[in-house]
């Protein structure tokens, strides 16, 4: 019988790891708490910087894991360490025996309503990046006006913000904002699109080109200054205030739609799983890897591996690469033990 690995979380990290483990001749079991695979990516419409459909990636990953056992809408109730592995008890009563556990619990999207001054859930035309992706994907959204004259994007909502309890940079929001700004400009060429940023962190391949294109080809306005507060004027338009830090002056503008780039925060499940497998949690709430340079995918405990955003904010390519690395690490661990 093949050795089994329990993968907690069926997002792209879990799926990619499962696909690799299958190829390596092991038997992965994915336990996913929601009713679908693909995690956050499955809710996204298009991905930067190629604007490729997110669904293609998810479909590919799901099809490449068809040989794995998959539990949907299932949570882990308990994990016990055995002599040569672990047993995981599921909330449906099943017990899984495995040689290694791969934690792929991912992240949680910051609750934008916590930044009260932006008025998410209070003003009619304030939405989040996820809401906008849903709308791009075809979901109706009454908050998005038919013909907006001006659209704004607020970077770093809940990221790099000690008041929101998150000091980390979410890595993907700058690019997501630029991507969504471009997509909005394509849908509404007449609209003025503003991006309010603190820093632009565009580190990956093709990212800077994407930014240049947003500036030059789409005429998107980048304003260096964090939005301080949002209010509604008498016409129901949003009055947004920020400092134009480059000119050192306060700045205001009326918008028809404001998109909050909610950042990545650690998922509440991660802490629960961490306590089950006795893995350490970092002070940012994400899981602590053995080290942050060479052994990101390894925990301090034998047979417990991490992949993806459970250890910190990640892009999709990073997540996929880590999933492969984690699969290989788990494989070597199992083979060396045998």
């Amino acid at each position: 019988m093949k050795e089994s690995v329990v993968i907690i979380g069926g997002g792209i990290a879990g799926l990619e790891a499962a696909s690799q483990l299958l190829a390596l001749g092991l038997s992965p079991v994915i336990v996913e708490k929601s009713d679908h695979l693909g995690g956050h990516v499955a809710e996204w419409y298009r991905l930067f910087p190629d604007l490729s459909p997110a669904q293609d990636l998810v479909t590919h990953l799901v099809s490449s894991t068809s040989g794995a056992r998959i539990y949907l809408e299932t949570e882990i109730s308990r994990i016990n360490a055995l002599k040569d592995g672990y047993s995981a008890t599921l909330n449906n009563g099943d017990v899984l025996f495995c040689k290694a556990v791969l934690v792929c619990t991912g992240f949680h999207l910051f609750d934008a309503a916590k930044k009260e001054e932006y008025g998410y859930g209070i003003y009619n035309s304030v939405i989040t990046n996820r809401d906008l992706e849903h709308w791009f994907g075809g979901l109706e959204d009454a908050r998005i006006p038919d013909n907006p004259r001006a659209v704004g994007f607020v970077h770093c909502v809940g990221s790099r913000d000690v008041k929101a309890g998150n000091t980390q940079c979410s890595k993907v929001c700058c690019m997501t904002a630029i991507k969504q700004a471009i997509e909005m400009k394509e849908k509404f060429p007449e609209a003025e699109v503003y991006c309010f940023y603190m820093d632009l962190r565009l580190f990956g391949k093709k990212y800077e080109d994407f930014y240049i294109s947003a500036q030059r080809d789409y005429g998107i306005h980048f304003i260096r200054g964090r939005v301080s507060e949002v209010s509604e004027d008498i016409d129901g338009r949003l009055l947004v205030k920020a400092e134009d830090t480059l000119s050192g002056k306060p700045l205001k503008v009326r918008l028809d739609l404001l998109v909050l780039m909610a950042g990545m925060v650690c998922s509440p499940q991660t802490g629960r799983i961490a306590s089950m497998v006795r893995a350490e949690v970092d002070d940012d709430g994400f899981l602590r890897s053995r080290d942050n340079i060479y052994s990101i995918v390894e925990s301090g405990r034998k047979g417990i591996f991490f992949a993806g955003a459970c250890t910190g904010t990640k892009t999709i390519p990073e997540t996929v690469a880590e999933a492969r690395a984690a699969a290989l690490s788990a494989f070597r661990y199992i083979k060396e033990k045998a």
Partner: protein
Amino acid sequence: MDFGFSLSPSSAIDLDKVDLSLYRRLEQTVPDIRSCIACGSCSATCMAADYSGMSVRKLILNLQRGADVKKMLSCCMLCGKCTMVCPRGINTRKLILDVCRYYSDNKL
């Protein structure tokens, strides 16, 4: 009545009210100005900066905010150093000449 104090004008920029006609015109003739990243290389190298506050970075920003740019242009010598150092390859000399050219009389 003189109270010994008075309302101070707002320094805030209201993007809905700024006059962007000059900027829009320049977007046509020097499209690269959109890609300024405000790095400040131009200002740092400028020969006229000491005398008139010349800064192409501020010039572009002020144009985008509909603010006055005439004063800073007063000492530009068109030497081209700003063009040479711009990391985004903006043709700053053309920008300066076009601003000088298009600056509408009602703004003088």
